[in-house]
């Protein structure tokens, strides 16, 4: 879960695994440019204590982001933000997101949101993240 005020927020009752929530929240900050290349993220232990979760959960989130090219993990130095150039989206890139997006849209429509309102919100969020406005 992402809290636009600038804090990382998770919900232990959510069906989304905690490590994924942490990774999603951090990724949003990284995409928006909140952390510049070279910046240090909180250590695994510090973030785990602050969130009240096991340190392996935070470590898994950091590993996921490292595999996507966002972070460099150095033992005893923590996680450092890498300079990452936006890759060119391939033909099948949208396919990767189409399925989870479809599920999210279905949930939103199921809760009564209109397609237009949903589309507006998604466009707004994408533009804000592009501009680095959280």
């Amino acid at each position: 879960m992402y809290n636009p005020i600038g804090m990382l927020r998770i919900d232990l009752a959510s069906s989304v695994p905690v490590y994924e929530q942490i990774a999603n929240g951090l990724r949003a900050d990284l995409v928006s440019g909140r952390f510049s290349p070279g910046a240090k993220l909180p250590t695994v232990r510090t973030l785990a204590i602050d969130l009240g979760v096991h340190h392996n959960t935070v470590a898994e989130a950091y590993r996921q982001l490292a595999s996507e090219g966002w972070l460099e993990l150095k033992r005893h130095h923590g996680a450092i933000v890498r300079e990452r150039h936006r890759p060119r989206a391939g033909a099948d890139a949208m396919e990767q997101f189409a399925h989870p997006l479809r599920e999210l849209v279905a949930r939103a429509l199921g809760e009564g949101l209109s397609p237009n309102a949903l589309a507006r919100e998604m466009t707004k969020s994408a533009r804000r993240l592009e501009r680095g406005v959280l």
Partner: protein
Amino acid sequence: MIKPVITVTIAGVAILHAVLFWFVPRLTRHDLFFAVTVAPGFRDDPEGESILRHYRTELVLFCALALAAFVAGVSWLGVGIVPGGFLTQLVASFIVFYRARQRVLPHALPPTTIREADLDGGNRIVPGGGVVASGPFILLVACAAYVWIHGEEIPARFTMQWGAGGSEPHGWAGHTLASVYFLSTAGILAALTLIRYGIRHWVRSVHAGGPEFASELKFRGTVSTILLATEYSLPYNPRGSCWSLVVMV
């Protein structure tokens, strides 16, 4: 016959204990009441005030009973019963606190599943860093080295504790590794250092971010600094310390 100074000291400690426990329920965050997380205004509600009134009434009663038993015990068995008396009062106070807590528990707030963390992290550096933290240990090692060099000048048995008022000695130490080379002091220093580090790095914050988080980190820093000052004063504690031995040598 019990000396007046001992009587006044005992009475003072007993009264201080009771006063502390009287105010303890109010000396916490507004959402904490007898170690239970409650709605912020609960302490001032009629229900909260009723629980506090019950607690204070029981506290006075239990402490009075404990003290009566304590005084009777001292009159009958002598000053040696003093630690037992304090222990009785302490146990009685905790029982009263526990009973109040049980009354508050039905009003506890359900735990939240939302967790937050400020990614900026805040300043968690232990005040003074490693250099300042090692000072008390260096002092201790310096004293130990000085005493070791002049080891033959230390008597086989020397006084380390005096009675109330500093009159007659009633505690001695021998020329052993522990008493001369301050191993217990070193242990206490190590424990305090770990506590200081733990306060800064191993404690989950109540507030995730914002000014409350900064305020919380500042408070933890203050506590850490006080503990550091305590560490620096330990080598100068006249009981079992290096200073008295260095002076003696």
